[in-house]
């Protein structure tokens, strides 16, 4: 009569949505590594990534109604929250750097021992990205892996802002369809 992992995650999602004690720590235990990975890859700084995950998780856990099941599963919701928090921090850091007249794009840090994923899901995503139209893939790579704003993407690709929005949106929808069609939920 033990619960399945899926049932436990469903229970965790309900507890998290209600801001119940224990749910924050349990969510971090389950998803912390992925969330930290998202923040670290955007910010390239250990302390900033730690603060990013901490602040993002705490904010949504303490805000009634911030997470609702119709927003998707809890892991995906938290990934989105941390990504947005990281991009806010990154923009803020870049603005500070501009003010101090020493702007340079943050380069990847060089911590040793990082693990470059080569699991099935990562390979499926890479394959699906290769099948994207070139223009959509270029926009997505700049926006997600290059952490560029829409305006920066537009400038680098030499296209209007609206075109960037359309390409990014189409790329995400196309990837979602590809990953679902292959049989495993994305």
């Amino acid at each position, binding site marked *: *009569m033990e*619960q399945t992992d899926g*049932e436990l995650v*469903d*229970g965790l999602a309900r*507890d998290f949505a209600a801001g*119940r*004690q*224990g*749910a*924050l*720590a349990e969510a*971090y235990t389950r998803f*912390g590594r*992925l969330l*930290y*990975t*998202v923040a*670290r*890859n955007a910010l390239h700084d*250990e302390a900033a*990534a*730690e603060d990013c*995950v*901490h602040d993002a998780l705490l904010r949504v*856990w303490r805000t009634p109604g911030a997470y609702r099941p*119709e*927003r*998707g599963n809890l892991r*995906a*919701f938290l*990934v989105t929250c941390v*990504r*947005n928090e990281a*991009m806010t921090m990154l*923009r803020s850091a870049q603005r500070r750097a501009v003010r101090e007249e020493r702007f340079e794009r943050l380069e990847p840090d060089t911590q040793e*021992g*990082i*693990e*470059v994923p080569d*699991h099935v*899901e*990562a390979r499926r*995503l890479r394959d699906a990205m290769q099948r994207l139209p070139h223009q959509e893939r270029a926009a997505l790579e700049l*926006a*997600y892996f290059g952490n560029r*704003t*829409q*305006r920066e*993407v537009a400038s680098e690709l030499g296209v209007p802002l609206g075109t960037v*929005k*359309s390409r*990014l*949106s189409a790329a*995400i*929808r196309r*990837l*979602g369809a590809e*990953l679902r069609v292959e049989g495993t939920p*994305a």
Partner: protein
Amino acid sequence: MNRSHVGDDAELYVIGALEPAERAEFEAHLKGCTDCAKRVADASQVATALAMSLPAYEPPHRLGRRLAQADGAQVAPRRRFSLWAVVAATAVAFAGVLGWQDAALYQERARTTVALATIVHSHFRHVTMTSSSVGPAAKVLYARDGAWVYIVVDRPVAGVRAVLWRGATARDAGALQPSGGVSTLFVSDANRPERIVLHEPLGVTASATLTY
């Protein structure tokens, strides 16, 4: 502001590509729009796949401690584990040198010691169980985070088992152990049960609903 719909913003939102003002506007819209919530839910699955393709980093231990503190989860699992390990190892050692009765008695005391030590280090609540007949009085002490429960019945009972419910799922946590004038059961990995039901061989004895 609540625009009728948001164009491509759902997909841009999940990858963090909206400008801060656009994001605030979109999040406000999202609260009242189930269509966009569904679109975000779909797109966020792709965002998760993108995240899983990134070079992985191990978070610092300090981050987990900070969040556990914020959560109010005060009981350190490692400490509880070591307490269990010490008590269990000692009980086994005693069982080797004492007769069976003495060893059983020691193990019973060890169980009680573990339960009490865990309770001392926890924030907990209690609830009186509702009896389905004129049965013995019973009470449940439980951690505020649902990590453990301690069931106490005010007389020795035989063959009474505790079933822990969470949602529609039940888990048999084992039989209460008579000891002295009471019977007890300590469940160290209770996993936040919502309801506890005591079953004797002929039916339900008592139940309690746990709130967190």
